[in-house]
């Protein structure tokens, strides 16, 4: 009967996992950075700028990965009505939006020296931009309700609808791009990925994925904490209190202020 009980399973499972994930994130990203910045060859065409790829491609991967994750959470929330699915989707959205924005920014920084322009209406960049809009729509919707749970549910439905739409958008943008884009412009997939580039790329992708899971666990905990706080506040503990309890409540205030001023 109590939904508050279920999340504890999540906490028990993730508690021992968290330090390992955090460690893996640090190691993977550190070695990935070493290879990306020092020990990887230059692209014969792009020179040093190819190093931006080691951020751009993992960020793009994370943007898509997070959206797929949100859609899966949305489907689970629809089928099993498990509150944790809504919470996970909600916790994923800002991470996915950040990575999508990073993908666009690094793409732009890569494009300027290569194409001489900050923005190209390239099919991939444009699709990522639309993905960012989808993220922003989700975040706005989820936060637009007074009842957070209602917001999460509406968001899950939207994530699912958006996920069905993403392939259609991708297809139509590709089609639009081939129609309008002169073929002479260098495409993002221009440089063939050399095996020596694959290692840092794989390390960074794995590192970013681990980073996502670390952040996901933390954000889900945050959300669970906030739910518990709301439940506690709603319980009316502070309504009808005896002197003794009022005293306790005062000590609460005092404690809180002490903590806050640290």
């Amino acid at each position, binding site marked *: 009967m109590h939904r508050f009980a279920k999340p504890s399973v999540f906490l028990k499972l993730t508690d021992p996992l968290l330090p390992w994930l955090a460690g893996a994130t640090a190691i993977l990203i550190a070695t990935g950075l070493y290879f990306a910045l020092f020990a990887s060859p230059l692209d014969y065409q792009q020179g040093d700028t190819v190093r931006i790829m080691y951020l751009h491609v993992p960020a793009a991967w994370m943007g898509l990965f997070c959206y797929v994750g949100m859609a899966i959470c949305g489907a689970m929330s629809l089928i099993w009505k498990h509150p944790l699915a809504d919470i996970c989707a909600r916790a994923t959205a800002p991470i996915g939006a950040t990575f999508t924005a990073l993908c666009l920014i690094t793409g732009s*920084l890569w494009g300027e020296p290569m194409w001489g322009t900050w923005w190209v209406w390239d099919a991939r960049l444009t699709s990522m931009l639309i993905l960012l809009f989808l993220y922003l729509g989700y975040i706005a919707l989820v936060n637009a309700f007074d009842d957070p749970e209602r917001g999460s549910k509406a968001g899950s439905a939207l994530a699912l609808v958006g996920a069905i739409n993403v392939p259609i958008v991708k297809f139509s943008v590709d089609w639009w791009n081939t129609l309008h884009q002169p073929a002479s412009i260098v495409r993002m997939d221009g440089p063939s990925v050399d095996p020596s580039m694959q290692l840092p790329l794989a390390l960074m992708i794995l590192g970013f994925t681990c980073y996502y899971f670390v952040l996901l666990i933390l954000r889900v905990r945050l959300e669970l904490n*906030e739910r518990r706080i709301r439940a506690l506040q709603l319980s009316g503990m502070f*309504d009808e209190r005896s002197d003794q*309890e009022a005293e306790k409540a005062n000590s609460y205030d005092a404690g809180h202020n002490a903590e*806050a001023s640290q």
Partner: protein
Amino acid sequence: MSEFFSMGGYGSYIWGSYAITAIAMIALLLATLRSLRNSRIERDQLETVLQARRPRRTKKAPKAS
């Protein structure tokens, strides 16, 4: 060394993208940790009040706040 930082003349683009990525990722992590800490503090305080409050229904006028 300076050759490494100049990155064949593209240093500002490359270091710029690495810096932005690092800032964004670290900021997201720190913001999450910070609000997690705050929520934990607030929750602990509320739980203390909850535990202090024995289940008894003493009717008293609500304290004006």
